[in-house]
């Protein structure tokens, strides 16, 4: 509990009381009924800090995520604020209008929460379980690969190309995710494999 919160609470209480009594006394309150000067309580008190980097442009500014709850303790962590990390050599704590509003990106109303499927010809998305979605995707991919995989070209050279399914990799995923993605895509023989380097 923030000290200021309690102090502020007290003052409010006191103010209300003063107004009450004086009103009862002679029907008038007093200016003292007004809440004494106070500033807003520091909203980051007792939050968990996490070092992160901005996911937007390639300056990769350091940011600090402030959350109620601590993932490291296995708790649920709700992000209440994000601001620049003054220790970071590149941005020295500063952020651009996008980075400064990262909290609202994390909490965007259009953040996706559940796997969805849109059936052929349908005009809507429907909820689907992860298992159902992944099984279906794997099946579709395997059937397409088996049907269209080119093991050897006409000269009999092994070429191992799967050109009928392509993949675009994300520009904001970590190198580690990228490496895992790379391994899967190249092992499957997906040659229509690209990223955002050009756009």
């Amino acid at each position, binding site marked *: 509990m923030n000290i200021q919160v309690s102090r502020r609470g007290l003052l409010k209480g006191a103010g209300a009381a003063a107004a009450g009594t004086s009103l009862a006394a002679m029907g008038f309150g007093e200016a003292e009924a007004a809440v004494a000067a106070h500033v807003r309580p520091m909203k980051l008190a007792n939050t968990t800090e*996490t*070092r992160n*980097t*901005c*996911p937007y442009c*390639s*300056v*990769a500014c350091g940011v600090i995520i402030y959350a109620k709850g601590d*993932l490291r303790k296995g708790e649920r962590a709700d992000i209440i604020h994000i601001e620049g990390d003054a220790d970071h*050599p590149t941005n020295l704590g*500063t952020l651009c209008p*996008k980075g400064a*509003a990262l909290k609202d*990106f*994390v909490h*965007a*109303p*259009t953040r*996706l929460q559940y*796997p*969805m*499927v*849109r059936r*052929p*010809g349908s005009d809507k998305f429907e909820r689907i379980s992860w298992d159902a979605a992944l*099984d279906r*995707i794997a099946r*579709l*991919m*395997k059937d397409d690969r*088996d049907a*269209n995989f080119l093991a050897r070209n006409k000269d009999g*050279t*092994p*070429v*191992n*190309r*799967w050109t009928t*399914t*392509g993949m*675009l990799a*994300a*520009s*904001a995923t970590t190198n*580690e*995710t990228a*490496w*895992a993605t*790379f*391994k*899967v895509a190249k*092992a499957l*023989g997906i*040659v*229509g494999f*690209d990223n*955002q*380097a*050009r*756009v």
Partner: protein
Amino acid sequence: MTNAWTDIKNTDLVVVMGGNAAEAHPCGFKWVTEAKAHRGARLIVVDPRYTRTASVADFYAPIRQGTDIAFLLGLIRWCMENDKVQWEYTKAFTNASYIVKDGFGYQDGLFTGYDEEKRDYDRSSWDYVIGEDGYAVTDPTLQHPRCVWNLLKQHVNFYTPEMVERICGTPKEKFLKVAQMIGECSSPTRTMTSMYALGWTQHSHGAQNIRAMAMLQLILGNIGVRGGGMNALRGHSNIQGLTDLGLMSHLLTGYLNMPTEQEADFETYMKSRQFKPLRPGQTSYWQNYRKFMVSFQKAMWGDAATAENDWAYDYLSKLDVPAYDVLRMFELMNAGRVNGYICQGFNPVLAFPNRGKITAGLSKLKFLVTMDPLETETARFWENHGEFNDVDTRAIQTEVFQLPTTCFAEEEGSLTNSGRWLQWHWAGGSPPGEAQHDTWIMAQIFLRMRELYRKEGGAFPDPILNLSWEYHDPNEPEPEELAKEINGRALRDLTDPSDPAKVLVPAGKQVVNFSQLRDDGSTMCGCWIYSGCFNEAGNNMARRDNHDPDETGAYLGWTFAWPLNRRTLYNRASADLQGRPWDPSRKLLEWDGTKWTGYDVPDIAPNAKPGEVGPFIMNQEGVSRLFSRGMMRDGPFPAHMEPFESPVPNVLNPKMRGNPVARIFESDVAQFGTSEEFPYAATSYRLTEHFHYWTKHNRVNASLQPEFFVEISEELAAEKGITLGGWVRVWSKRGSVKAKAVVTKRIRPLRCDGKVVHVIGIPLHWGFVGAAKKGFGPNSLSPFVGEANIETPGYKAFLVNIEPSTPPAGVVA
């Protein structure tokens, strides 16, 4: 970037051309303002629009989009003419003195060997004269008429200030002012930095834009020094990383290439990758290619990759075309030759040119999988949004899966920034709903497919069944496990070649860095250039020592930079032939008589004597290239080329359209517009309030820039009767959009080749999902043509028409 963001503070002159750093990279631009405030540095902006960067510039010069090469070659000519050349540097560190084959020549805007049928060059004549000793012939006096320097002088002679004005529309006196400011940086004690971005890359001749500036920087002696360099400001947080890791059609990790059909077996593949030095005693680092390649194959397929099976070379796909880049894939999609597509954090419906063609392509798919933290137009391409996405939903038979992923705040790992820093970050929040990490999703897809192949067999299952997947939890590899794989480790004890008894790295231990990699299968390494990021010393990407001795801006203790934690590439070039810094006040490295010492990790063997070993060790020459031999498809020198859609013809050759060797698909030729039909020169760009199509989902950014608009000059507005904030329709041969009009003094008509050229600016942040007002993107209008060398779509110069209009249906005026 050759240098780091933090190094920009060391510069004397910043040239922002082909980019808009203040707008797109505000916090990186901080270092420009630092240089201005503390070094008295000057800032020049050359751009079709008076941008946010221009608003704090010392000098602004307008230019017609797509004509940067003419401007830059004009600068090179001016420097040569006026002896604004860092001679010692140019002679010692570039190939200026190399003699070029007699066959090579240039006329009517074309180099020798052009084949109009193939739209390609026979590049055999674009090369050095090789002597009997097998080394390139040079003339250090630069007297030889065929030496690179003299050929360059001849080549740029055409680009006089008058010609620059004629082509670029830049008033002569403004061009000369820029030339003078830049010329001053030929002094060894003055440096200039070039900050560019997609304003240079997104042209059919993008690579040559960049080469032209690189050449200028070389003759000014600004590469490898503090406050200098060629600084490509990458657009996305980890696009540098994804490229380094080879998530592209034609690449493997660390800029190793995918084999082609011609390279049927491993030895053939390696034969064209010998990288023998072209000058005596030079280091040609790519000679280690085999070590990196074998270690990569071991990382992919572990024990299944053996000397016997050529390290599982057969498992790799072999390309029959230069690349299956996105433009080719969507071409194939439209031809009905693609059935499935996976979009991981990617929004092609707004990201790729000629949106009509993209939507048509997706509509032909059997299935589409999107993985994203946010709604995307791509995931909902089948949904009708009136004028904003007018599709026939019922007719679209594509099965679409929308998979929710975590975002940066909920995951751990490293991102590689523009300055090649691999920075680790930690998860700070719990994911919403059922959102999952991409690693989990990729693992699930892979494990399920592997299982199906185990059970059912199928087309060439070996690479799938044998893919090394040794993770603590195969269902979700941990970031640290993957990072260790990328760094590489010893598979057997690595012993000292000179003393077999001495074990350098015991089996199973992480290698220190790529210098320990072997080509005998005893090491594995996912991405050689990243090796050193996570060795036995721990996770170097997570280091947070932000001390900066003598405030050079190097920050060697902060995270990890590839290669080998080096912060400035080619840094050996910061010192002269004796190894003394060109500018003692800006020392980076110094030869102490026995080794290189200084503030950065030397970009050369620490004991390589100055004067003997050249600084550009990744080149066979050991020096940098003003003449790039046959390495680029469109010429060894940059040359002025107009965009495919240009308001004026190419002054060098009126018949020539765009880049003569850029790939164009038959179906797209018909969709190029002419200046008669579409008189106005359009360009597209970002705004600082938004990031691509992400922040329109964010109410804060949406409120800062709520609605799609186009920018036009007051002159054009008056001519067309367009009012401030009124609705306009902008259309090209490929599509039409409606937007609000921002009428501004920041865009002024240009006069090119005697013709008035009006510029129309089209920002790219709006779509039909999210918090911001529904809108369009420039990709509804831009042409489906790629860069000649790397197929980057041309977004920066195309033709449109404009008229006052009414709001889109359903939008209140």
